[in-house]
């Protein structure tokens, strides 16, 4: 009788192996043999190895399950010995991206004298076992059985074109979300635009000027915002959050949380009487904490919708049931309702564009610059507000002062600096914080230097940089222009800032001059980098996106920069990776064009379910009967 030959099943789930002490060999192997980082960071819910192992044993008595962590990954000959010792004639690698280890396993099979052809892959993701919520256990079982008994994978699921609901959801109302919404709405399609804060506009609304043309940011953005607000095809949902996404490509069901605004959107006339009388002062988010706002407020004068809202966390009427003055002074009856509760809205859409944006690097993490300790060390975003004509100082560059309650804020009064330093790469290109280049800081720093010079022609401005990255159309020319304006460019990142009296002492190396620099500045601007939002991971899990160091991963950086691994879901703007406004707008338009293409064709790429698991099981049972016989 012929010797019984066994089949080994390896469950391969790369993200489980990273930084696991007993799995260092495999981890190193994956690191060197997979092209990109994404293999570690898939946010799709994984499967349960033990459950699948028990399952395959039910169906076959010739299966042996191997934990990849216990296999040798430094030398294929060691694995070959194990293969020979266990009398394995076939290996099934099941899981996510199993191709990474295929060549190694195949070599070991050859060294063991078996056929290298007998290494079979069961990629759960490729064969449709994953959906928005993760790997479906039943589908994974079906894929595994198919690979084990060499059934065609098409039985489980087939790539198919699914019908499309023409309505689109755009998540995030910054420049990317607004642009994408407008493009789609202009094509005559309905769009839901969901924005978390009280107004659309995002970070761009906070900027003073844009590089390299020095156009006023508001002049470009606010007409777009108004258009979004008034467009008949755009259903604007500000102060709302997307809570749940279910369904298949082309037909998603989305649950939206409408946070209680306490002010009736349809009756509020935006007169501002409530804000005048409100006694509570809190830091203004829109002004990047450089001034105060009230507990009932409008984020900024050009907000869309131009309606007030109550900050639930700080309003004393809500927290302590004291005050209530805004309702008393409001000229419209029943406009302010303190009892309004959060509600939910369920919508169905065909396509989703994710444009959730970014957050700026928290400069307090770089202790040596003393941000938060020295009042005249600012972040670039604070400086944008400071220099903006609608900002706290009306566009004058003043030092920060303390108000009656000891809060450091900017006011119309105060002295102006004579020497201003701009430090590049704060929190970017730094292994201690973020290793990526934030792409925009060099250029906006040059812009800020120009703005300082424009407002204070006598001031000396110093730029401390590592490398000057002027990468876009007209950017290098912009750099040259700024240099000619007499701004000092110093190659060498500042190492630390110390306060001496009212001055800030910067210590750094001047690489081109070959000397140590100790300079005194009146004001220092930290060019903080861009980071993924804190809850980017949560959003990724909800929508089934992959992330790469917190950024959402596109389907293919070169050929499909807006698509994702799920049909009908697209990314646009900085949530996909750091980029400037031109690139963001371009990507938003590209995403919109993909949506429009989808709707016009009426079809979206997806998977159609094949034979159910129970049928595959029946089919397989016959094989296993033969096997046992």
């Amino acid at each position, binding site marked *: 009788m012929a010797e019984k030959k066994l089949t080994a099943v390896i469950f391969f789930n790369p993200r489980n192996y990273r930084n696991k002490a007993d799995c260092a060999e495999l981890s190193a192997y994956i690191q060197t043999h997979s092209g990109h980082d994404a293999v570690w960071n898939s946010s799709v819910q994984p499967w349960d190895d033990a459950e699948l192992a028990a399952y395959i044993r039910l169906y076959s008595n010739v299966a042996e399950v191997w934990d990849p962590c216990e296999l040798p990954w430094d030398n294929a000959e060691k694995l070959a010995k194990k293969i020979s010792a266990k009398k394995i004639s076939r290996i099934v690698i099941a899981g996510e991206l199993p191709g990474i280890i295929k060549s190694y396993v195949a070599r070991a099979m050859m060294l063991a004298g078996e056929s290298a052809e007998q290494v079979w892959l069961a990629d759960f993701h490729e064969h449709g076992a994953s959906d928005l919520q993760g790997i479906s256990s039943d589908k994974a079982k079906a894929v595994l059985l198919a690979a084990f008994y060499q059934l065609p994978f098409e039985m489980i699921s087939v790539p198919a074109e699914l019908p499309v609901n023409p309505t689109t959801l755009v998540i995030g109302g910054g420049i990317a979300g607004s642009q994408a919404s407008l493009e789609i709405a202009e094509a005559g399609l309905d769009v839901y635009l969901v924005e978390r804060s009280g107004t659309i506009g995002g970070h761009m609304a906070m900027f003073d000027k844009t590089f390299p043309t020095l156009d006023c940011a508001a002049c470009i953005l606010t007409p777009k915002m108004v258009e979004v607000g008034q467009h008949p095809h755009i259903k604007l949902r500000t102060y709302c959050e997307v809570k749940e996404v279910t369904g298949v490509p082309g037909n998603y069901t989305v649950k939206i949380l409408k946070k209680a605004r306490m002010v009736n959107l349809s009756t509020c006339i935006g007169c501002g009487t409530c804000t005048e009388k409100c006694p509570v002062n809190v830091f203004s988010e829109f002004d990047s904490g450089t001034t105060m706002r009230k507990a009932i407020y409008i984020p900024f004068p050009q907000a869309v919708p131009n309606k007030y809202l109550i900050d639930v966390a700080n309003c004393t009427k809500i927290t302590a049931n004291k005050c209530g003055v805004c309702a008393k002074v409001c000229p419209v009856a029943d406009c302010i309702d303190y009892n309004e509760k959060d509600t939910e809205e369920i919508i169905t859409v065909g396509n989703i564009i994710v444009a959730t944006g970014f957050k700026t690097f928290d400069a307090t993490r770089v202790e*040596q610059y003393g941000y938060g300790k020295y009042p005249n060390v600012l972040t670039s975003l604070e400086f944008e507000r400071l220099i903006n004509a609608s900002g706290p100082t009306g566009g004058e560059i003043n030092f920060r002062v303390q108000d009656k309650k000891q809060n450091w804020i900017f006011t119309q009064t105060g002295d102006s600096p004579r020497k201003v330093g701009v430090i590049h*790469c704060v929190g970017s*290109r*730094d*292994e*201690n914080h973020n290793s990526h280049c934030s792409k925009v800081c060099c250029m906006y720093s040059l812009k800020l230097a120009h703005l300082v010079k424009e407002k204070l022609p006598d001031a000396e401005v110093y730029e401390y940089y*590592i*490398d000057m990255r002027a990468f876009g159309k007209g950017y290098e020319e912009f750099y040259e222009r700024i240099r000619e304006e007499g701004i000092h460019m110093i*190659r*060498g*990142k*500042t*190492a*630390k800032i110390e306060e001496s009296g009212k001055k800030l002492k910067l*210590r*750094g*190396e*001047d*690489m081109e001059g*070959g*000397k*140590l*620099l100790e300079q005194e500045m009146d004001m220092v601007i930290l060019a903080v980098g861009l980071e993924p939002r804190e809850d980017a991971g949560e959003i990724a899990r909800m929508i089934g996106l992959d992330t790469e160091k917190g950024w959402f991963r596109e389907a293919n950086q070169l050929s499909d920069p807006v698509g994702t691994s799920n049909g009908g879901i697209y990314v646009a703007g900085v949530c996909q990776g750091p980029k400037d406004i031109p690139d963001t707008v371009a990507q938003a338009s590209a995403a919109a064009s993909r949506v429009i293409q989808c709707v016009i064709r009426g079809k979206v790429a997806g998977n159609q379910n094949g034979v159910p698991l129970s049928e595959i099981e029946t089919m397989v049972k016959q094989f296993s009967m033969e096997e046992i016989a």
Partner: protein
Amino acid sequence: MSHRVDPTLIKEVEKFGKGSWNECFHCGQCTANCPLTEEGSLFPRSGYRALQMGMRDKLQAGVEPWLCYYCGDCSKQCPRDANPGETMMVLRRWLTSRYDWTGLAKKFYTSHWWELIAVLVIGTIVGLLFSVFNPNGIVTELNPDGGVRINDMFPIKWVHLGDLVMAACIAFLLVTNLFRMWYFTILKQKETRVPFVLYFTEVWNLVVHFATQKKFNKCDNKKYWAGHWLLMSGYVIMFTMIVAFLPWFQTDIIYEWYEPQRLLGYYATFGLTVGLIYFFWGRIKKAAKSTFQFSHISDWLFIIMLLLTTLTGIALHFFRIYGMAEATYWMYIFHMAILVPMLVIEVPFSKWSHLAYRPFAAYFARVKKAAVSRNAVKEKLVLN
């Protein structure tokens, strides 16, 4: 001045320890962070540049690695995890091997076996010398005050003679190496001509830096300076007493505790012990981005041999004053079998050599700086 580019330089230096010099993208933070950086000596980054470019002469001419006490401030902030502090350490090893004309330093630093075997061989020879060729053997008879007659067991005359011969050899090696250091750093660098008189006017630097390590005190971590200073002072006192003044220090009489022999001995032992515990603990903990994150075998050998010497020395002292003749005898041999190879191997060829190179580096740096400013003044005069 032109520089010859040597592409093999980086490979050569890599043999002396863990380095990540290709990581550096020259942001200059390490230089500015270093409390020792001043006009004219921009390190550690300049070292990185020379390494990356293969500028052997420039790297060899730099005394900066010796000025660095490895407080680790540069490594903490480095945005590339390039570990400038450790690079300075590696460069010190490399420089030691460049100064050493025998080629042994390079062997000891780049091969674990060479260093270990050399220590073992010399230790064995010394041990055999004391135990096998010892004319007197164990003298069990005690002094009237109860002490062991150690100088009868090991004739002090001969031991002292051997001592002086060893010291002379070490001194010869160190002086010739220092001469090469001077040649590389000053003589070969033709762009600065150093007037002879400056060597005399700046000589006080040598003494001050050796005795106080005041540059080290500029580092933020004062504990590190204190630990190092205790160790250094204890070592120097002990070394001087056992090499230069052995007949005065090692006697059969048990002195009262307040006599200088005992006081100095106790201080030196205290300094050595406390310093060693500090270093030992640090190297075991290997805290990330600290001075002790990486340990080369020469670092360990240095601490372990000194610790063993100290411990055997302490044991020897008590065995002697409590009249335990046989224990004293064997402990003395053991003590010598560690002490002698430590001095012979470590002082001229390995880590201990920094004892000489550090103060001389500070001295040469001062001389060079003085020469530069003097030449600048002269030029001005000529121009006027």
